């Protein structure tokens, strides 16, 4: 009898404790997400009295829209530049910082600083740094007798500049993730590898560190891709997608269509494309993680 009333009490307490979160989840996450899916198949514009169902027209428009194609292409280039740079850089920094005890905390803090700095403010700092005439970068290039590009205002270099800023921002984040992976590798393995003839540091990296870091690397890879796919702040602050759409990226296009032109239906369709790519990346990650051998 006591047992049963206790179970009932537990069931009631459990239900009550998940209820507030459940309601908030429903109202603020689940229903709005479903509404976005529905909006994507409508021609809804903010303030319009009625909305019409137009099926796949938004997606058709996307395919025909040259601007959207440019936006997707730019996003892919940006992700393709930032992901490898911030992963290789993060791994290199992690190896270098972890290689000795001296200055470990200091350098970890230095490289991590951009992760916690206000992106908008740092974007303004980068704008000054990369200013074509008064910026220190070009001043240094001039002093060395080199050319002085219009970093953020030329369509040739704008994506490269944004990618450099994005890499600078996320390299410390990846470094910290790699450092966590490195500390999980048992020390004895390095001694064993040395006994087995792995004399050089590179051999030890190739035979021990790299394979054991596999799961971490895959994790960092997907996280980096998803994070760089979400690039918005620097574009909104520095270029507004310009010059001439050369730095137009997916989330900025979505933002402009939805909140500047108030074409919510079309913007929702772009959001779904964004969501599909994110989900695909997550799916690939779990598939590969399930399949691969775990060493540690």
């Amino acid at each position, binding site marked *: 009898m006591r047992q049963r009333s206790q179970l009932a009490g*537990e069931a009631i*307490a459990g*239900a009550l*404790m*998940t209820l*507030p*979160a*459940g309601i908030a*989840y429903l109202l*603020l*996450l689940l229903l*709005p997400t479903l509404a*976005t899916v529905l909006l994507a198949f409508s021609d809804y514009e*903010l303030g319009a009295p009625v909305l019409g169902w137009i099926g796949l027209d938004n997606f058709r428009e996307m395919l025909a829209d040259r601007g959207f194609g440019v936006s997707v292409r730019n996003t892919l280039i940006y992700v393709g530049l930032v992901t490898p740079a911030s992963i290789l850089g993060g791994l290199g920094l992690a190896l*270098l*910082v972890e290689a*000795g005890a001296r*200055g470990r*905390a200091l350098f970890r803090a*230095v*490289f*991590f*600083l951009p992760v*916690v*700095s*206000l*992106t*908008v*403010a*740092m974007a*303004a*700092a*980068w704008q*000054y740094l990369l200013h074509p005439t*008064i*910026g*220190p970068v070009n*001043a*240094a290039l001039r002093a060395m007798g080199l050319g002085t590009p219009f970093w953020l205002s030329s369509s040739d270099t704008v994506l490269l500049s944004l990618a450099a800023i994005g890499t*600078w921002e996320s*390299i*410390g984040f990846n470094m*910290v*993730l790699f450092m*966590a992976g490195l500390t999980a590798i048992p020390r004895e393995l390095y001694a064993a590898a040395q006994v087995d003839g792995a004399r050089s540091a590179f051999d030890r990296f190739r035979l021990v560190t790299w394979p054991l870091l596999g799961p971490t690397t895959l994790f960092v890879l997907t*996280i980096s891709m*998803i994070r760089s796919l979400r690039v*918005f*702040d620097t574009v*909104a602050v520095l270029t507004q997608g310009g010059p001439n759409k050369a730095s137009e990226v997916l*989330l900025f296009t979505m*933002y402009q269509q*939805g*909140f500047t032109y108030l074409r*919510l239906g079309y*913007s929702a369709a772009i*959001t779904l494309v*964004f969501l599909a790519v994110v*989900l695909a990346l*997550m799916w690939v990650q779990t598939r590969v993680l399930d399949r691969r051998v775990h060493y540690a």
Partner: protein
Amino acid sequence: MTARIAVLALLGALVLMPYLWMVAASLKPVSEIFRASLSLWPEHFAAAENYGKVLARVPVLHYLWNGVVVCGGILVFQLLFAVPAGYALAKLRFPGRGLAFGAVMLGLLVPPHVPALPLYVAASGLGLLDSYTALIAPFTISVFAIFLFRQFFGALPDDLLHAARLDGMGEWSIVWRVVLPNAWPAATAFAIFSVVSHWNDLFWPLIVVQGHAHATPALGVLYFRSEEAGDDFGAMMAAAVLMTLPLVLAFLLAQRRFVEGIATTGLKG
């Protein structure tokens, strides 16, 4: 070993460049900035002029206060919703637990940009645009926090809970007085993750805020740049320094906790 320090110092200096030039320019008069000299050290100090201009033209303290209100409000609600839910999912048997956990896992897949459009329509329909409510409400539910707390609470020993129940404590007081105090590492890690991401967020504030009254620090920098600064890079950099400083100071004071907090919560992306 000294080669390691030398390489690290060089790379560190490179990463710190934007900060060094930002601070240097905030101390220089406009004429000096326009000469584009490669000297970091100002010949004439114009700190009072630059910082004075920022403080006089835009309500810097008000922006920072808005940032505190928004980040604090978001965090309090996130904990209020997520801590009991995480505890129930980890330690209590109740009908619908499997469904609730499935909902959490599903929610983890959705980036915050996805529900943004309907939330904007709702906020606009309710007349809530440009308010603290609009800035805070969408983020009060964090499925990630529920997930994190469920994992952490699951590792707490059941004996601890049994003892509390034998002492006559109800489940609610167990949550706040027994479970949460034993979960500080998870709670601080999440708090740091939450505050850093919302302090730095631009996307949502840009959508719902118009004007200075509810502008967050990120928006404040943007407003100052477009309305006041123009080509006045000295004042612009002073504004950037002022808005960046609070979180950077907090980071420097507790950098171990920050790094651990972001590393353990890094999976959110």
